[in-house]
């Protein structure tokens, strides 16, 4: 049981090639981290996996427990067990958080089945308490007027409520002060277990002090250029990304011809 990304090539629709043969396997129960310099394609990877219409896959596949998800609509991928915590969560005016999360859960039920309201609010409040989110949050519009920290907590809250099989957390640490980082990390750690595979995307090593990964990958130029244990993150922190760039041969970094 794993999320397999195999030889993934993707570009902006009608534009620049960003992912150039990316390989990764996230087993259920494991936590992988991807680090990489700005602009290396980390968010693009997460959005391509989730099915964002800005990108087109030019080669490769993404297998969720053996099922290729690339032909599926984004909502079907989510219901199949994929979760993406956005680097920049979107504001949805006029739709309350409670209403939004309920709609997401309702979408997972069979036609005609209704979510049980008391049970729903019981679960919601439990997860909110864990993430130290105040109760008035439920009535506020999704992410509207939220601080950076509130937005990231909201992403983790949604993840907790939707109980995915695989979760990709795109820079869930950015914009968080140390206290918020601890709360959010504890929230993620509480969800760790044999039924969840996690891919943590981060620019900084700091997050990995709180969410300890099993494997660390380095993404440069649209592909994974190095994979190792957690010590790799520390090495990157100490030496910066230039070190890796320098070590890689010209050949390894050479861009593949962009498909016309």
């Amino acid at each position, binding site marked *: 049981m794993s999320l397999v990304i195999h030889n993934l090539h993707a570009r902006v629709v009608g534009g620049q090639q960003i992912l150039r043969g990316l390989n990764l396997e996230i087993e259920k129960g494991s936590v992988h981290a991807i680090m990489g310099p700005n602009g290396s394609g980390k968010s693009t990877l997460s959005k391509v996996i*989730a*099915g*964002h*219409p800005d990108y087109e896959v030019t080669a490769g596949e993404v297998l969720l427990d053996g099922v290729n998800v690339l032909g599926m*609509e*984004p*909502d079907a*991928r*989510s*219901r199949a067990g994929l979760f*993406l915590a*956005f680097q920049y*969560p*979107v*504001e*949805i*005016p*006029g*739709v309350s958080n409670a*209403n*939004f*999360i309920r*709609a*997401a859960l309702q*979408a*997972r039920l069979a036609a005609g089945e209704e979510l049980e309201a008391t049970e729903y609010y019981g679960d919601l409040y439990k997860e909110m308490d864990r993430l130290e989110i105040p109760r008035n949050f439920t009535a506020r*519009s999704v992410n509207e007027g939220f601080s950076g920290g509130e937005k990231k907590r909201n992403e983790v809250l*949604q993840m907790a409520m*939707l109980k995915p099989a695989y979760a990709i957390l795109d820079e869930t640490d950015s914009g968080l002060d140390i206290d918020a980082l601890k709360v959010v990390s504890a929230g993620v750690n509480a969800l760790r277990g044999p039924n969840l595979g996690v891919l943590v995307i981060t620019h900084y090593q700091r997050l990995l002090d709180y969410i300890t990964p099993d494997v660390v990958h380095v993404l440069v130029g649209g592909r994974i250029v190095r994979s190792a244990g957690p010590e790799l993150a520390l090495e990157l922190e100490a030496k910066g990304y230039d070190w890796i760039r320098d070590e890689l041969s010209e050949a390894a970094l050479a861009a593949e011809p962009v498909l016309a």
Partner: protein
Amino acid sequence: MSESLLQAPLAAEPFPNQPDWFRDARQQAALRFDALPRPSRTDEAWRFSNLRAFDPQDFTPARPVGLELTDSLLPLSLGADSHAGSLVFANDKLVARTRSAVSEQGVLWMSLEEAVAQHPALVQRYFMQSDSLFGSAKHLALHQASVRTGTFLYVPKGVHVEAPLQSFHWLAGSGQAVFPHTLLIAEEGSSVTFVDWFKAHNDARNLACGVHDLHVGAGAQVHYVSVQDWSRQTVALHSNTTVVGAGAKAVHLSLHLGGSFARSESVSHLRGPGARSEMLAATVADGAQEFDQRTLQDHGSPDTSSDLLYKNALYNEAKTIVAGLIRVAPHAHRTDAYQKVRNLVLSAEAEAVSLPGLEILADQVRCSHGATTGEINREELFYMQARGISESDAYRLITYGFLNEVIERLPENSLRVRLQDSLQARLQGH
């Protein structure tokens, strides 16, 4: 044609004990209705409007509904959970009212015909005191000549009515015309929330021609909500005049859901320093519906403020028009007037027309107006889909949120919830 609108209303006399002035005014209105030309598209106030939508002669004054039908309508006339009293009308006849404690506070809460009989002086002072500012004199005349009932709500000085009061106007049958009237007077320092629910029993072509006037005394606070949920084939003409006194605040929220051609006119006269008016509307337009909305923010005193927010969601070949004028009189210095129209267009065939206007004759005035027309935001859509919500559900939820932002401006929770239910029900199937 003995049953045409022109002859019938005075024949079936609904006002027992009416004073002479009242009968005379109605007779004169009937003459005016005859004499006035039908509005033409060349009138500025009817630009872009679909004038061929109806001929008054196609309708007869609504006939009373049977007991059985009445009984079936009452359980559907619930409104907000926490209301302080309801009047229920069916085809322009009061058919039920709930017991209300507001009379103990000195509040007058009754049908228009009761008010004409019991409080003629009050009615005379406030009833149909304004001329049409939107080229609808003929429709106002039709209303005055034909009106048979409506709501009379008088809140004495300093009295606060905590929970909302509400009226239901049901329209049943086909080719029927109703003329619902609302006359709300809030005396100095009082406060009240009132809701008009306009509802259809069946899906047929009918006519509604209503007048809804609010008089907000100095320092008073009035929230007026109207839910226009007539049948999708009904021609609806609703005209509102709100007069706001010094330091007073009026909030008028309209939820427009029904009608084939629905014209709503709303003017706020800000008379007295510190007067404030909030004009809010949320419209769902689909099929071939046309919603024609005309507004005036009339600043007649210094230090007054107004805030208009009209939102339209358009499907299919629907059309909306919002023509909004801000007028600032020469001495109305330090006016603060805001106007925003937002259209969410969900179909390439739909048409949203925005016609903002400014007429500013004073100094130190802050006025801003803007109209935007857009489609569903793709990032919002993807975010929802990434949570497992289907594309069509996401469209509906985003549209709901877009309009719900208007409803959220109401402070009263149980009323908000009821309006949200109505909105949600209306969006089902899209």
